[in-house]
């Protein structure tokens, strides 16, 4: 037979060998020269589960928990596993439509990819959670995930505690990817400042999952797992009952209360009005309430204690007196004769008193809050013969203010504190082109002009006076549980600032005596508490605002500062109530009640009705209504322009046309119309607007805040003209 074919066995062997060589090369490429498969196998099979530790609790000075953790559920979805879901039932449970359902799934895929869970509906209500838990088997791919949230049993302290919220990309970037999408962090207040302490340490659990994403057990015997460490608790100086009382008193008012223990710098109470309930901003109610509060022009979300800027008014006087005494430009017996005004400079500065001898010495001048006296001693301070000129004297004066902690950030343990304002000479040089003297800013002596402080700075100045020179930076946290030397976060609060201890005891005693007289016989007699020597100072600061293009004078800010008892100061308070009138009418009684509550742990029965009276008083400034209208209508018009949906602006249009009708009829008699000042202004401006032809406004630069203010008015014009609206609506 064909023996000659024997050579072909070599060919066949070669074919075998070549094929196997190809396979070996391929195998080497797969196994030796590409490492992506290893990573893919890992991500296929190992599920890294993050274990969230419980967040630290914040306690008050009596070890009551001001906030607590509780668990709420998120509905999460893994889009890849969503197959044969009873969509219509799920939609009916969540009360959304199928279009929205699809939308959310697509959003989830974009956000976290197909194979990772993303939040489908966050923070479920208890009822909804129960329903979903029962039916979760109908919805493959959907799971309920625990999410710890905060509750506030005392319903107090929203501004100082702050809130927690989901991280955004900026936070993730800043943390160098320490946080991951979906993590919750402190977004404001102490929650933000003490984030590193409160958050604890996240744990990681490696779990094996199979091809259907079912968990099969731990991976590599938990060798790489780390356990979660609970966040540490904070022990604070806050007196939660005092806080509750203060918040009650501040209801329906714009302003702020700060109470500090002068001995330690510990903040006992910090309130910002309008007051909000912290429970409104957690869990499933957050979304709804947050939007409402954020759009409110009275800015309820802003912490006015650290971010509200106030002219101290007469409450500055003890500070001004101290500076003058220390510089030796006057002594405690120095007096001026005041006949109801200060005529030393060109402009007349009015004084509330005109009886002779009401400013015969420092003590009397303080008790009677004589404007002439303090204007005079301010000028003497700045024009100090020891200094070469006014500017040098002013700089020295400014250094004193900075020593009190004014004009620069105090460094309290809350984020985003404002420094207030004690202007530099450069500012006056610029404004007055170098031509200024002690008369130019003489009202600085009575706490006006360009001087602005935050309530916490005001309270801190009281601490300095009460302590006769030293202070600790105001702070909330006394200690951290299981504190280690590595915790540097509290170090700055344990340093004693001996800023003004060089001022003599006599000077302090003179000021203390004057401040005590304020309560005993002066402007704040209403604040007197039998058995307690209170040192205080009232203040009434003038306020102006711009509304509808006009500068209008608002009711005065009611200010009050005090500390008590005089002999052994335990509490220093600053109160500011915006647009409420005299310092003695609202701010003083509030402070008095707080002192009584704090020092005696109770309030006398005859004072209890005072609490109710103040708590029920609504002192929300009237001009805010107009501001709110402008803001809302502007926003509505903006969205109307974007979406071409006239339903946004309908209600503003009606309101406007109704308002416009009236003055149209009695156009000529407007001037004789005797309404309140603000309303009068409104009507006048409404008429002015009617006469102006409608400008065509470009909204391209809407984001710029200066332009936005301009837009207010331009848009307000647009609402007047119905024809224009119809034209817009027709588009």
């Amino acid at each position, binding site marked *: *037979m*064909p023996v000659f*074919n*024997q050579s*072909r*066995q070599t*060919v*066949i*062997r070669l*074919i*075998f*060998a070549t*094929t*196997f060589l*190809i*396979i*070996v090369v*391929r*195998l*080497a490429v*797969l*196994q*030796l020269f*590409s490492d*992506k*498969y*290893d990573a*893919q*196998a*890992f991500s*296929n*099979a*190992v599920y890294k589960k993050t274990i969230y530790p419980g967040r630290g609790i914040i306690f008050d000075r009596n070890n009551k928990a001001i906030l607590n953790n509780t668990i709420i559920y998120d509905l999460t979805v893994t889009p890849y596993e969503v197959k044969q879901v009873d969509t219509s039932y799920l939609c009916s449970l969540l009360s959304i439509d199928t279009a929205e359902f699809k939308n959310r799934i697509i959003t989830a895929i974009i956000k976290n990819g197909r194979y990772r869970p993303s939040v489908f509906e966050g923070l479920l209500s208890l009822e909804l959670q129960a329903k979903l838990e029962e039916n979760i088997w109908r919805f493959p791919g959907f799971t309920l995930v625990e999410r710890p949230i905060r509750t506030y049993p005392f319903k107090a302290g929203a501004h100082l505690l702050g809130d927690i919220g989901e991280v955004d990309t900026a936070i993730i970037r800043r943390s160098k990817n320490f946080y991951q999408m979906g993590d919750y962090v402190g977004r404001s207040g102490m929650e933000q400042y003490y984030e590193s302490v409160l958050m604890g340490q996240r744990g990681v659990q490696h779990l*094996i*999952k*199979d*091809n259907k994403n079912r968990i*099969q*057990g731990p991976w590599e015997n938990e060798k790489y797992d780390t356990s979660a460490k609970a966040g540490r608790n904070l022990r604070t100086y806050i007196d939660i009952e005092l806080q509750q009382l203060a918040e009650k008193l501040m209801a329906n008012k714009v302003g702020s209360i700060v109470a500090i223990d002068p001995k330690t710098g510990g903040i006992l109470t910090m309130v910002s009005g309008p007051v909000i309930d912290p429970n409104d901003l957690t869990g499933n109610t957050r979304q709804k309430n947050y939007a409402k509060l954020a759009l409110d022009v009275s800015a309820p979300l802003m912490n006015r204690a650290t971010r509200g800027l106030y002219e101290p008014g007469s409450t500055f006087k003890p500070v001004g007196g101290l500076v003058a005494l220390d510089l030796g430009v006057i002594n405690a017996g120095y007096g001026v004769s005041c006949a109801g005004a200060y005529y030393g400079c060109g402009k007349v500065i009015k004084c509330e008193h005109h009886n002779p001898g009401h400013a015969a010495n420092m003590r009397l001048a303080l008790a009677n809050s004589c404007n002439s006296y303090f204007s005079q001693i301010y000028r003497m301070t700045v024009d100090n013969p020891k200094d070469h000129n006014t500017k040098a004297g002013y700089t020295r004066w400014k250094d004193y203010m900075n020593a009190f902690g004014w004009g620069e950030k105090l460094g309290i343990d809350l984020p985003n504190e404002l420094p207030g304002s004690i202007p530099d000479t450069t500012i006056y040089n610029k404004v007055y082109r170098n031509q200024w003297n002690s008369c130019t800013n003489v009202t600085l002596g009575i706490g006006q002009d360009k001087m602005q402080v935050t309530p916490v700075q005001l309270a801190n100045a009281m601490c300095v006076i009460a302590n006769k020179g030293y202070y600790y930076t105001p702070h909330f946290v006394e200690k951290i549980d299981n504190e280690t030397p590595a915790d540097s976060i509290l170090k700055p609060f344990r340093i004693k600032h001996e800023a003004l201890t060089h001022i003599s005891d006599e000077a302090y005693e003179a000021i203390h005596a004057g401040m005590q007289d304020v309560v005993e016989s002066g402007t704040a007699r209403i604040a007197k508490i039998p058995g307690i020597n209170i040192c205080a100072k009232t203040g009434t600061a003038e306020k102006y605002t711009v509304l509808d293009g006009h500068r209008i004078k608002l009711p005065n800010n009611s200010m009050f500062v005090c500390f008590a008892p005089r002999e052994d100061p335990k509490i220093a308070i600053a109160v500011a109530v915006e647009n409420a009138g005299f310092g003695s009418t609202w701010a003083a009684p509030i402070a008095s009640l707080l002192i009584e509550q704090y020092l005696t742990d109770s309030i006398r029965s005859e004072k209890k009705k005072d609490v109710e009276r103040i708590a029920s008083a609504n002192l929300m400034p009237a001009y805010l209504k107009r501001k709110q209208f402008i803001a809302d209508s502007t926003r509505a018009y903006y969205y109307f322009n974007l979406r071409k949906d006239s339903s946004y602006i309908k209600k503003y249009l009606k309101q406007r046309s109704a308002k416009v009708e009236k003055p149209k009829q009695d156009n000529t008699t407007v001037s004789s119309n005797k309404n309140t000042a603000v309303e009068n202004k409104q009507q006048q401006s409404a008429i002015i607007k009617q006469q102006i032809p409608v400008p065509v406004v470009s909204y391209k630069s809407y984001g710029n805040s200066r332009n936005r203010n301009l837009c207010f008015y331009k848009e307000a014009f647009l609402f007047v003209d119905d024809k224009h609206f119809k034209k817009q609506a027709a588009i």
Partner: protein
Amino acid sequence: MSLNKPEISRGIDGLLLWLYILLCCIGIVSIFAATYREGDDIVKTFLSFKTDYSKQSIFFLISIVAGTAVLLTDSKFFTATANLWYAFGILLLLLVFPFHSNVKGTKSIIKFGNALQLQPIQLCIVFANLALAKYLSRVETDFTKTRSQLVAAAIVIAPAILAIAQSETGLALVYFSFFLVMFREGLPAIILIIGFSFAILVVATLLVDPDILALILTGIAGLAIYIMRRQIKRYKSVLFGILGIWIVCVGIQRFAVPLIFDHVLEPYQVKRIYDTLGKDYIPKDAAAAADIAKNTETKKDDGDYNVKQSKIAIGSGGLTGKGLLKGTQTRYSFVPEQRTDFIFCTIGEGFGFVGSMIFLSIYIALLFRIVTIAERQRSTFSRCYAYGVASVLFFHIAINLCMTMGLAPVIGIPLPFVSYGGLSLVTFSMMIFILLRLDKDRQMVLR
């Protein structure tokens, strides 16, 4: 060949036998690694015969017993009954048409009760091998004649056609491996070259835009004419030959391939071929799309997904592997069909490059041993049969490994001796044992 040995083991090729046993054991261990669940009592599950690895062991024992019986027969039995077996096989294949049972995606299985199922197309490989060997070894066959070559081709292609009719394209392709045997027996090499070129042309058709491919082919033809211009001057027929080849190539590329893809192959098969080449297949109409959807859903194996997961499994093995029962891909069923067609993933992931190399060297040793055995036969029948065994095994191994590593389309061909499957194990075992039996009488001339 010591006389002390008992009759049965005298003259048996020990190396081949041991390689075979080794592969079967590797198979059982691999199936164990792929299907063992944490916490199962190993001894108990092995004896319960419920798990796949214990079933496979049973089939291995059955194979050994049946193999012993084969060794006890006379070697002339196989030459005498070869055609009979072949006829029996074809009969079985025909019986499949009326009696096949509803098993997912195929019409080639006859079920007896719940436990036993028979796929005649697998058995028929042995029969076709015997029949081909018988035909080639006939004294009156002159394999240099075209007629003989056509008859031999018909013997192997007939079952393949029946297989395609039963939607078992993968197994049908196995029968084409017998052309290697024919090549050894004198089939002109040109036929293999043409077959190979055809395959390349088909792949190129799928990968390259038809117009550009036509241009390339024309360019090649032009180049060939330019190079061979001297010969063309002398013999005009060379020019016509080149032009003829060019027309055939363009014809295949333009008409034959689309025709085959649209009318002969099922859309899901077309999709798998496209998947392997890394191209997206767009179904030409709704019916085709429905067919793809049906086949991917019922078979639970979207070819693309399988290959991807299988590549991850093998690739993540690295140099030394993750160790037995430690592979996450195979332990947690990311690779579908991992105990049958994709069993190599378990080895690749568990034992890495080193383990896979050892495993491959066992296979190549087996194949080379069979070729050596074939060449030492005195009778043509034994030689042809041995080459048949080598070709069939080679085809299975090569395609299966390429399939798991993404070099070949997923066509559902098992890895011999290793993949789970009673019938395939028994079939391959019988092939080996018949070979051993024939080899025992290698000094005889069998007709």
